[in-house]
């Protein structure tokens, strides 16, 4: 972030609204006349299957096109049509784009099923935009919020003939109204419509017309703009608005993946869909028109990873993508790939478990099941991207790591990161960077060898040389397996052969640390007594919570874990602070368990801040949990 964050009025307001934080605060209410510029939350309450997603997306993108940082979260049901769905847009020019917490400033309530709860979700002084084609019953009228009724259904009935259009344009009309209410540049929306319907020009005019209808209605009937409004800025730079799964799919294209087995599962499906669609654009052989890749939709997740392992064994960069239930099914195969030492990349878009859990809600709850997947002593390499940019970078990197280390590499994304659009640095790739294909012997190298053993630790780093089928007529063939064998890959039940092999695998895993991306620190407060560890998609909320805590006079230093096995720098960070918090989105503090176990720490050294309700953790919750903990400790110390 290039600029200094300004004091976030709304965030402070919500933080103060939290009773645990108000001990020495005066209850300041929102200033009434001063406009609140570029700092608010708009929530759209829709019914899924009604075409709201593309209109809501257009809203978020229009903010971005006005140069103002924006973040959006789609809170959707495991359902195709008819259930409530929400789209929460955070507008914040300090780049605080995670979930803020607290209530919503502007609610666009289009779903009768959820209306009462949606009204209760509006903050004092906030706005409810709703369809007043029918009069709102009395029990829905609450004090302290502004009601902005627009007869959206009636307008559509009058203006459009086709029933589908009558439904779809409802969404476009409220976006038009919001443009007037929030002072969004109408020409930005018009350009977005043209972009969206490129090639389907016939649709541009009716969409722009629907925007106009909403815009005109708001202009005529309300005092525009509202207290909340946007003002053009130049704060986006070269950033892009994109979801993490696009990053993973594209990262696999750039990383050279050619073999994919997969099984559809929310929220990972779009990783493969994106990989497929980019391959169909970028990986077609120009001379023959044939595919430089192969994708098979498998019969289940077991077969999906089996295919990726088969491809890896045969020297093609291979991967699969899945979510929690798939991880459970793939565990046996992960053990095989670990033990037979086959490179394979697995992208895990985590969702709320256990079992089927909440398939459309986010969590970081597969850490233990991935780190130690499969029976027996196994450990797997994990990467933790925190932005679409890193989803791209780490997926591409995962292929190098798994080829180099001849073992599975699991990219640990989640539903929030994977399926929501985030403002992210652009994807980057350096053409000079060469794929690291690891230790694979060529015909010539085999010719020069007097002896070849597949599991011989020639270099002393635990990583052995592999050969690919079909390479050499009489050297280098081996029979690999999940059963124990000696260094020459010959079946062996000798204890010493087994132990040596397991110890070498352990050595290799330790060696892997030197290839892992280092944890990233955000420090600079010299007097900070508190260190905060975190990883993945909670990043944006944590960066904001650090700011909130600073305002409360509590400086904290941050360290973002990027990979497992953990590097030395993580141990050093933990040692440097009197108090360490670990932020994670699961019930049991799985990262805390992993850190304690792997770094041999007293678990009491790590205080968990947890959120596992299926939604992304909020900045308010993190700040408030840390603050509460610190205060309790203060009181205890004083009492002593």
């Amino acid at each position, binding site marked *: 972030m290039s600029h200094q964050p300004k004091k976030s009025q709304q965030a402070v307001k919500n933080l103060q609204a939290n009773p645990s934080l108000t001990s020495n605060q005066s209850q300041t209410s929102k200033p009434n006349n001063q406009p609140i510029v570029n700092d608010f939350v708009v929530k759209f309450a829709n019914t899924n299957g009604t075409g709201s997603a593309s209109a809501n997306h257009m809203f978020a993108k229009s903010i*971005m096109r006005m140069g103002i940082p924006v973040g959006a979260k789609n809170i959707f049901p495991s359902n195709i049509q008819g259930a409530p769905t929400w789209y929460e847009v955070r507008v914040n020019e300090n780049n605080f784009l995670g979930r803020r917490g607290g209530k919503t400033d502007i609610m666009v309530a289009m779903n009768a099923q959820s209306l009462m709860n949606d009204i209760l979700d509006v903050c004092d002084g906030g706005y409810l935009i709703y369809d007043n084609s029918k009069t709102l019953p009395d029990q829905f009228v609450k004090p302290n919020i502004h009601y902005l009724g627009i007869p959206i259904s009636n307008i559509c009935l009058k203006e459009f003939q086709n029933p589908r259009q009558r439904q779809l344009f409802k969404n476009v009309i409220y976006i038009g109204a919001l443009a007037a209410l929030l002072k969004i540049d109408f020409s930005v929306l018009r350009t977005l419509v043209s972009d969206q319907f490129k090639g389907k020009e016939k649709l541009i005019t009716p969409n722009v017309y629907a925007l106009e209808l909403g815009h005109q209605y708001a202009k005529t009937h309300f005092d525009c703009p509202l207290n909340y409004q946007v003002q053009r800025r130049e704060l*986006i730079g*070269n950033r*892009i*608005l*994109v979801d993490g799964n696009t990053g993973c799919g*594209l990262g696999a*294209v*750039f*990383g*050279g993946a*050619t*073999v994919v*087995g997969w099984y559809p599962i929310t929220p990972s499906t779009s990783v493969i869909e994106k990989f497929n669609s980019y391959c169909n654009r*970028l*990986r077609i052989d120009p001379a*023959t*028109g*044939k*595919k*430089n*890749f*192969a994708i*098979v939709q*498998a019969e*289940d997740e*077991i*077969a*999906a990873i*089996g*295919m990726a*392992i*088969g*491809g890896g*064994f*045969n*020297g*093609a960069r*291979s991967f699969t993508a899945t979510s929690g239930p798939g991880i459970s099914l793939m565990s*046996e195969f992960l053990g095989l790939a670990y033990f037979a030492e086959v490179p394979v990349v697995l992208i895990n878009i985590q969702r709320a478990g256990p079992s089927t859990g909440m398939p459309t809600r986010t969590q970081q709850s597969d850490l233990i099941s991935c780190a130690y997947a499969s029976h027996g002593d196994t450990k797997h390499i994990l990467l933790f991207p925190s932005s679409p940019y890193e989803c791209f970078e780490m997926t591409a990197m995962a292929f190098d790591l798994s080829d180099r280390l001849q073992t599975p590499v699991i990219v640990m994304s989640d539903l929030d990161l994977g399926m929501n659009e985030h403002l992210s640095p*652009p*994807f980057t*790739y*350096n*053409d000079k960077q*060469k*794929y690291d294909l690891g230790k694979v012997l060529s015909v010539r190298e085999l010719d020069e060898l007097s002896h070849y053993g597949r599991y011989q630790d020639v270099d002393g780093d635990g990583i052995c040389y592999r*050969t*690919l*089928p*079909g390479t*050499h*007529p009489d050297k280098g*063939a*081996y*029979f*690999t*397996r*999940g*059963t124990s064998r000696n260094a020459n890959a010959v079946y062996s039940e000798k204890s010493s052969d087994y132990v040596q092999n397991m110890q070498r695998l352990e050595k290799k895993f330790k060696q892997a640390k030197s290839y892992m991306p280092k944890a990233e620190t955000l420090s600079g407060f010299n007097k900070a007594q508190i260190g905060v560890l975190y990883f993945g998609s909670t990043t944006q909320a944590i960066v904001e919570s650090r700011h909130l805590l600073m305002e409360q006079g509590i400086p904290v230093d941050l360290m973002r874990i990027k990979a497992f096995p953990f590097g030395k720098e993580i141990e050093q960070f933990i040692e440097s602070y009197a108090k360490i918090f670990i932020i994670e989105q699961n019930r049991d503090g799985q990262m805390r368990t992993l850190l304690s176990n792997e770094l041999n720490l007293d678990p009491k050294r790590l205080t968990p801040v947890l959120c596992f309700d299926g939604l992304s953790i909020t900045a308010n919750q993190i700040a408030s949990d840390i603050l509460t903990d610190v205060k309790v400790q203060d009181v205890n110390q004083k009492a002593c």
Partner: protein
Amino acid sequence: MSYAKSKFKHKDLPVNDIGLTYRDYEGAISTLCAGCGHDSISSAIVHACAELSIEPHKIVKMSGIGCSSKAPNYFLNNAHGFNTVHGRMPSVTTGANMANKDLTYLAMSGDGDSASIGLGQFAHVVRRQLNMVYMVANNGVYGLTKGQLAATSDKGVISKTGDVSLFNDIDLCTMALQLGASFVARCFSGDKRQLIPIIKAAIAHQGFAFIDIISPCVTFNNHQDSTRSYDYVQDHVITGAITDFVPVKDEISCEIPEGTFEDVCLHDGSIMRIQKLDQSYDTNNRYKAMNDIEEHKSKGEILTGLLFIDPTARTFHELNDTTDTPLNQLKQEVLCPGERILGSINNSFR
């Protein structure tokens, strides 16, 4: 049980077209029980590959778990092998084949591996028309876990420990036919004259070739009540036709007398010569083959031989329209679209 293999090679051993003897196609010494039908299969594979003059390193041996799946260790030492997990060989073979379509994939599985734990993977690899040879060493029993009934055990048979098979059996040939396999055969491991040419034809066949090989288990399923014992199989086996395989460049001279046979030309130009013993036998009719299997079964007979072949079926890579170069040989320059294109992709997200 032998524990060492003789290194001695007779100097007059015949060599094949690429200068190798059948000894060059052998594997490690078998650790299976003496008399195990699976060893006959290994031996048939050794001879089939030697006679076809395939370079051993251009073969990949795939297997699951069980006695059958240990067998690939006992043939083709100069080929890579992958002994995967129980019932999951088909998916690993699919991935390996996706990565390199130019190699020959010889897969060994068993009745537990394919008809029980791996039935789903078996069904789906058939559907995918993967170019591979899928052999099931079918002994109707779980060998490595000592004698439990298998899903291919005939209903009503009694295991060595006295358990009765209560449920319907699964016929993998019928399944393979129903799911669209383009080459389906059933053999008896004790009949090499039948097994070797069928393995050769299966290798030459471009597409999914399935061979269910009745392979008696001498230790756990060779007793009087068994329908998979050597004696029972020998007494009940019915052969629809004698098959011979004529490689692409050989002059056609085989043991089958002229006028009584049908020739099927395979993809590479080699010929599968079929001599009908039963005039109604028809290897071009998938549905009749299914019917014939069931009819013989109802009489207590086991129909063996080539049951169905469609030499024109399209394989996985043809269906997928995969590029001609094996995917594992594509270089970074071909695979990575590069910075400039990434720049324009970034623009689509602004």
